């Protein structure tokens, strides 16, 4: 029963990850922690592994369809991996409740940013005829995204997609496809540091990865046909729900007297 639940959670995370370029960790960590009662220290490396799986399955299709910007991805990847290593080094010294609060505030910020900026900034018309702008912002933001990836197990996608879409004026679909390509390397860098410390539980990872691969494959087939406005609303909606859940959980751990 638990295996089936894990496969289902993985499928939903993989589908959302492929559609929105968030890797799936942003959904999987709260699902594992809040839904299945798995400790955050075990849920984060497991979800990072799923981020790598989601990236591989969906990016294959996006590269084939020329939706991923390989050059932009490689530029931002360097900064992201540096950030991921820095985040992995400090992860052992931070309390899980604190990580949950940071995660909640971070997702809330991104969701509000998506909802507010969505009306201001017009979307570039073509997914093939565009030029990324503002590289310093993209590189520094990718460093932060990499650090958050290691700390929170979210692959950095929730920051990188708005960063590319709004900060660098890249079409939203290209941003999600490129983010999907990048989160694999970020996730691999982060999960390696967890694996060496013995925090990776493969019996938990196995059903999750099977589900994630199926979901990501389906999501990568559907994404090019879904309107951009729908994807943006989905992105913001998912982040708002997750933000409220994680802020509650983190608050409960940090200030138990306030919750009782």
């Amino acid at each position: 029963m638990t295996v089936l639940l894990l496969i289902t959670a993985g499928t939903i995370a993989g589908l959302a990850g492929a559609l929105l370029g968030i890797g799936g960790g942003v959904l999987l960590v709260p699902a594992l922690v809040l839904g299945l009662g798995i400790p955050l220290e075990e849920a984060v490396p497991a979800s990072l592994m799923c981020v790598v799986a989601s990236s591989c399955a969906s990016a294959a299709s996006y590269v084939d369809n020329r939706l991923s910007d390989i050059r932009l991805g490689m530029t931002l990847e360097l900064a992201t991996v540096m950030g991921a290593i820095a985040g992995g080094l400090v992860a052992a010294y931070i309390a899980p409740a604190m990580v949950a609060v940071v995660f909640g505030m971070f997702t809330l910020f991104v969701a509000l940013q998506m909802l507010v900026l969505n009306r201001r900034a017009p979307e570039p018309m073509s997914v093939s005829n565009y030029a990324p702008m503002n590289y310093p912002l993209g590189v520094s933001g990718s460093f932060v995204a990499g650090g958050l990836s290691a700390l929170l197990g979210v692959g950095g996608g929730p920051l990188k997609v708005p960063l590319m879409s709004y900060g660098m004026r890249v079409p939203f679909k290209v941003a999600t496809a490129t983010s999907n390509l990048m989160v694999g390397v970020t996730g691999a860098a982060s999960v390696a540091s967890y694996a060496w410390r013995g925090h990776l539980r493969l019996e938990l990872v196995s059903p999750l990865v099977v589900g994630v691969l199926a979901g990501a494959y389906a999501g990568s087939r559907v994404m090019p046909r879904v309107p951009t406005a729908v994807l943006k609303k989905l992105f913001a909606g998912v982040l708002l729900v997750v933000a409220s859940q994680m802020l509650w959980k983190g608050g409960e751990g940090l200030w138990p007297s306030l919750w009782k």
Partner: protein
Amino acid sequence: MAEPVEMTEAPLRMPLPAKSVTGTHAVVMPEVARVPAPRSLTLERPRVGRAAAGERWIARILRGGALISGGMFLASLGLEALPSSLTAHVTIDTLRKGAASMLLVTPVARLVVAGAMLGLRGEWRYTLYAAGVLGLLGLAVGAGLQG
């Protein structure tokens, strides 16, 4: 492997006179005659440039890594349903470790191919970025081994 050559049904421009007079009737010759390429010279697949071929390899690596590791994880789940034995336990453990390693290596292999592909096209900046990412990953793994 030889790169396929593009042969299309391109319009053939011939230096023909605009008009030729036959008796009292003026016959206007078409300036451009559409001549199909011979069947033997027409390739069935569209042109695959070095860029597209590189991207195709990246997609193959990603898809292959995902499928193989997914298959191994699925097989380990199937073996879990069987009656417990030492052999089954060892096989499950080996399959899972192999699948996890394969999954972690796949994005790295993709990065190597992407760096090599862009280097071959003369875009060395991206090859340096790829080398930088790989170097940092190696550093992280090395530090993890020692720590």
